[in-house]
């Protein structure tokens, strides 16, 4: 294990079979969706036009990809080089997250073949226009940031070096686009003050979406490292992951306090006190996603233990998903007058996409130099164009 050994082993058995079943179901549902329309596969209606494909696939997919820009910013802008070994895996997660979002959009959009219209027909007054451009541009930036890993694999080290030369520029662009994109998903809901429940509606929604995405994005980095440990038998880089827990606590605390202030300002405290449907959902979301992780990770003893760290990260991510589903579904139900429960097919599609993303992650880890040990192994194999691990400061 101590030897640089990049060979991850694939687990056949229950999970593989389950994934297979889901992918087959995905194929069937894809056919029905494109031949018979959205109504044939979803429980969406005129009263409830956005379901979990927006609430989970899009909002959570983008949010949980936030670890990528946070960690790249830490390494390349704040010069915290010690985090460099995890940059590649968070980049991969972010990249796959965005591809997952785009594929999900192709399912959810009524006329996905017109998706490129946002490029030529402009409406700068539309938040969705901003969202569309952020998706396009940030996916491009992610591709560029990720490209050296592919170039290395292809043996095109010259190109990889070229990209590196301009890396700071792309990292800054990536952080700007991510900030805009994360917050704009909150701005999307600013347009519905009369529809979104006051427990979630606030003029600060853009800031809330940004903060919670950074918090949960860091949690996702920890969680993903843990999953990699489980799946590929890697060791957990506790020395790198534990320091991530502290900004998580800070960000989630600020976010939590602001949320509570907003609820007092909106005068919706009574919903919590009276334990209404929305009040209960809010309490669950807030306890799981803010109170519990902050409480757990604030203690050094918990934070520095592997199970404590992973538990805190998992709760933050789970609470984040609850928040996005509450904004997009729970909070919109009362005004819509209907109770939306996603169809089995909607759920299967979402789950299959998550499975697909994980499968691609495993494949990428297998073939590309993602983890530091594989990077080192690759550098050894080609000593001449050894790929420097810490990149930003490297001279000639």
């Amino acid at each position: 294990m101590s030897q640089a050994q990049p060979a991850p082993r694939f687990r056949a058995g229950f999970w593989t079979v389950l994934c297979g079943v889901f992918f087959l179901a995905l194929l069937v549902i894809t056919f029905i969706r494109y031949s018979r329309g959205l109504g044939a596969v979803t429980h969406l209606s005129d009263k409830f036009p956005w379901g979990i494909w927006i609430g989970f696939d899009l909002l959570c997919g983008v949010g949980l990809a936030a670890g990528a820009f946070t960690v790249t910013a830490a390494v390349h802008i704040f010069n915290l080089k010690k985090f460099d070994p995890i940059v590649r895996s968070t980049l991969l997660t972010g990249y796959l997250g965005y591809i997952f979002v785009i594929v999900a959009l192709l399912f959810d959009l009524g006329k996905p073949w017109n998706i490129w219209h946002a490029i030529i027909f402009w409406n700068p007054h539309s938040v969705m226009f901003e969202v569309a451009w952020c998706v396009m541009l940030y996916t491009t930036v992610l591709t560029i940031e990720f490209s050296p890993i592919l170039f290395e694999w292809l043996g095109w080290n010259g190109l990889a070096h070229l990209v590196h030369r301009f890396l700071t520029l792309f990292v800054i662009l990536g952080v700007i686009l991510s900030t805009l994109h994360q917050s704009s998903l909150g701005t999307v809901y600013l347009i519905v003050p009369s529809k979104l429940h006051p427990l979630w509606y606030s003029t600060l929604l853009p800031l809330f979406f940004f903060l919670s995405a950074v918090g949960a994005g860091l949690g996702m980095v920890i969680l993903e490292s843990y999953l990699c440990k489980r799946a590929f038998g890697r060791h957990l880089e506790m020395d790198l992951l534990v320091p991530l827990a502290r900004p998580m606590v800070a960000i989630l605390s600020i976010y939590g306090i602001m949320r509570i202030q907003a609820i007092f300002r909106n005068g919706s405290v009574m919903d919590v006190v009276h334990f209404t449907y929305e009040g209960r959902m809010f309490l669950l979301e807030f306890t799981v996603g803010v109170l519990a992780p902050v409480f757990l990770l604030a203690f050094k003893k918990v934070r520095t233990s592997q199970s404590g760290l992973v538990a805190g990260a998992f709760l933050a991510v789970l609470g984040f998903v609850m928040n996005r589903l509450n904004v997009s579904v729970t909070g919109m139900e009362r005004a819509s007058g209907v109770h939306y429960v996603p169809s089995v097919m909607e759920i299967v599609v979402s789950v299959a996409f998550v499975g697909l993303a994980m499968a691609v992650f495993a494949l990428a880890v297998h073939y590309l130099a993602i983890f530091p040990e594989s990077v080192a192994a690759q550098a050894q194999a080609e000593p001449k164009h050894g790929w420097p691990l810490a990149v930003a400061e490297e001279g000639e």
Partner: protein
Amino acid sequence: MTVGLLFDSTRCIACGACAEACKVQNHLPGPVQEECTAYTWTTVHTVEDHNIRKLCMHCLVPTCVSVCPVAALTKSAEGPVVYDAERCMGCRYCMMACPFDVPKYQWDRAIPAVGKCIMCTDLVKKGQPTACATACPVAATVFGERKDLIMDATERMRANPGTYQDHIYGIKEAGGTGVLMLAGVPYGKLGLKTDLGDEPPSMHTWQVLSKVPDFVGVWGASLYAVHWITSRRDEVAKFEGRDE
């Protein structure tokens, strides 16, 4: 010039002629449905003997127009809010955002479109009234210039004291609408939204969106500054021979 419709609930006899005429004029398939759908653009509902029409309100500052990422929805010069299915990518943000819940979707089609009242824009462009106004046997729906309609409504309110609510619905709601309504009972009772405020909802998003260009510049420069300082620290450390 902005045209609109004035609907007077106290005159309406709920005959449904407006909804039928709308179907014919706009080539909408199937019979008139209970509620508005992508194939039924207007309906008449009766709440305790009071009749009320449902249709696109043709806002003066339409939320749907502001949210459409590809500008498939537009406010025409005459006043109707119109839709271009060719441009639409089907994100359904208009349905989400509309404060009056007007846009509907063709959920049953592989190549779907949004459906909503377009104030018979072809007729209006030719200077003719909408099909619903023409079809109405009791002039409960009348077509005209918005400011004339407001005068007409005010006159009716003055001439028939006690008959009407002391407010024309649509005069300020969500920034004002092209379709105006008069009724004898509180509008909330008829299912109309009364919590919309006087400002168009798009004001909330524009407050944020209008700051994006400034934000990009400031944020980008700040990030570069941080990068410059932190890298400089390393350079100095290297120069002075203390590594790290």
